């Protein structure tokens, strides 16, 4: 691309006036990324199709095929009653999404509050940190039996477990975030006459935000992981329960649909957390060069 690049006068180093997303789109098309990505996806689905549907190689013959699964997913009247056109599909999705997001949001609010308190007061941290450190190594899924035995009802144990998965991670990352704030910002705030609440809202929370959002990304992933396990053991509805039920009743195509849906919802949830993070932390935008 040996265009002659005319030196642009320094005074007005103007970005072309076209909208930024058009620029990103044109840059993407010119790079090799989309073409290799397409190649990769073809190889993956091609292998699935050849190994399972066509040649039924070795153990692959036991697995659900690519074509039947996609057909089931898209058909208006699916054999086992679950496709993008049936209400049952969306009821399971809603059950899982409701559980994950109610647990995630409450864990975020409580987790950040406790994390900030632990970061702020050394006595509170002294009291609570040892307990946290003792409970943290216990895998979340190991809490399932206790949750089922102790927590009454059907929904509560599942939401409780998903809450736990996000709770520990959020507390720890908030604590890490508060401790990472340079002492100089507290000193500047105090000498500028900030009250304690002002320091909390204008220094601690925004300062800890980068770490908090690293925690929230991990927490969202952990929520979906734990939800599926909890639903398999004690759920009535929800994608995790459905995965097990379709396996039990040998409806393998539907099982693949549910797994794909879980993957999609997991990806969208993480993308949502990243999006919210970018919005709240616009100040972290790279320097003027607009990275």
């Amino acid at each position, binding site marked *: 691309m040996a265009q002659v690049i005319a030196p642009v006068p320094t005074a007005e180093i103007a970005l072309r006036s076209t909208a930024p997303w058009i620029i990103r789109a044109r840059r993407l098309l010119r790079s090799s990324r989309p073409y290799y990505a397409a190649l990769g996806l073809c190889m993956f689905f091609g292998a699935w199709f050849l190994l399972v549907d066509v040649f039924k190689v070795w153990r692959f013959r036991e697995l659900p095929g690519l074509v039947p699964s996609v057909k089931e997913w898209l058909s208006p009247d699916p054999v086992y009653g679950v496709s993008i056109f049936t209400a049952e599909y969306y009821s399971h999705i809603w059950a899982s999404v409701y559980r994950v997001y109610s647990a995630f949001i409450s864990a975020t609010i409580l987790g950040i509050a406790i994390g900030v308190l632990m970061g702020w007061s050394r006595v509170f941290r002294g009291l609570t940190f040892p307990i946290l450190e003792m409970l943290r190594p216990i895998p979340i*899924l190991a809490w399932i*039996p206790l949750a089922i035995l102790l927590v009454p009802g059907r929904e509560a144990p599942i939401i409780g477990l998903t809450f736990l998965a996000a709770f520990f991670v959020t507390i720890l990352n908030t604590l890490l975030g508060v401790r990472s704030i340079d002492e100089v910002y507290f000193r500047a705030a105090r000498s500028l006459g900030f009250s304690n609440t002002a320091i909390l809202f204008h220094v601690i929370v925004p300062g800890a935000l980068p770490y908090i959002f690293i925690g929230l990304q991990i927490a969202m992933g952990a929520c979906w992981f734990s939800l599926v396990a909890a639903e398999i053991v004690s759920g009535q509805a929800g994608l995790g329960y459905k995965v097990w039920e379709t396996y039990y009743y040998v409806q393998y195509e539907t099982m693949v649909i549910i797994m794909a849906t879980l*993957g999609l919802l997991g990806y969208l949830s993480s993308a949502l957390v990243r999006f919210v993070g970018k919005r709240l932390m616009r100040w972290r935008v790279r320097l003027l060069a607009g990275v």
Partner: protein
Amino acid sequence: MTAVEANISRSMPTRVWRRIARYLTLELFLGIVSIGTIAVLWEFANPLGIPVLSNLPPLSEIVRTSQQLLTSDLYWDGWLLSIRRITSGFLLAQLIGVPIGLLMALHRASFEAAFPIVEILRPIPPVAWIPISILFWPTRELSVIFIVFLGAFWIVLLNTIGGASNVDPNYRRAALSLGSTPRDMFWRIILPATIPSIVTGMAVGMGIAWEMVVAAEMVAGRTGLGYLLWQSLEINAIAQCIICMISIGIAGFLSSEIIRLFGSFVAPWQRMH
């Protein structure tokens, strides 16, 4: 030095005190207080009628049942089997994950081709793979190991990619100028610089591996700590449940400590601050 420490140390002005004071910090004091009160509340939960803790068997009963359990072979077999599954699944995840991660970090085409697949498969919770794993793998043991493998694989893969592609460009440029061949660049510059991220990936991966062993044994396993935990759920033995949970917690803690030691051995320059 906080006020509390200041007046403690002032009362005994000897040099010896300086060394003791370093341990007798405020945190240690508060830690003992908090754990102590919880243990006491737990023990006398029933008479005091404390909401959550009263449903649990008192601490003393748990200690008694643990004595029985610790002497039973089932318990220790459970440990061995779970550890065997963890090690095989975890090691496989490193042996496959690290090389692929390095390839994807250093070879642009393979990254651009493989990354979409990673983005599709990674968000699917490994527990959701259990049915497929049971169908595909001929034996139960292999299906559990596959789930453990999945748990640790994605984490170490992404950490390796992250580590290898963010090597400080000045290291690469300095090495290039000094006359390094591509082989030198990989073995003497890129790989050592990536080791810390790989170790982080292993530590996090180990945590998730233990989560997965519990889930996999819950559904597909016939033995192991996880299965023991589910059995105690079936027979409503809360005390045994708690002991199994604590044992898994200790096992998880020990294995991440092993990873940390491995990390300080493989990347000694890290802790030399």
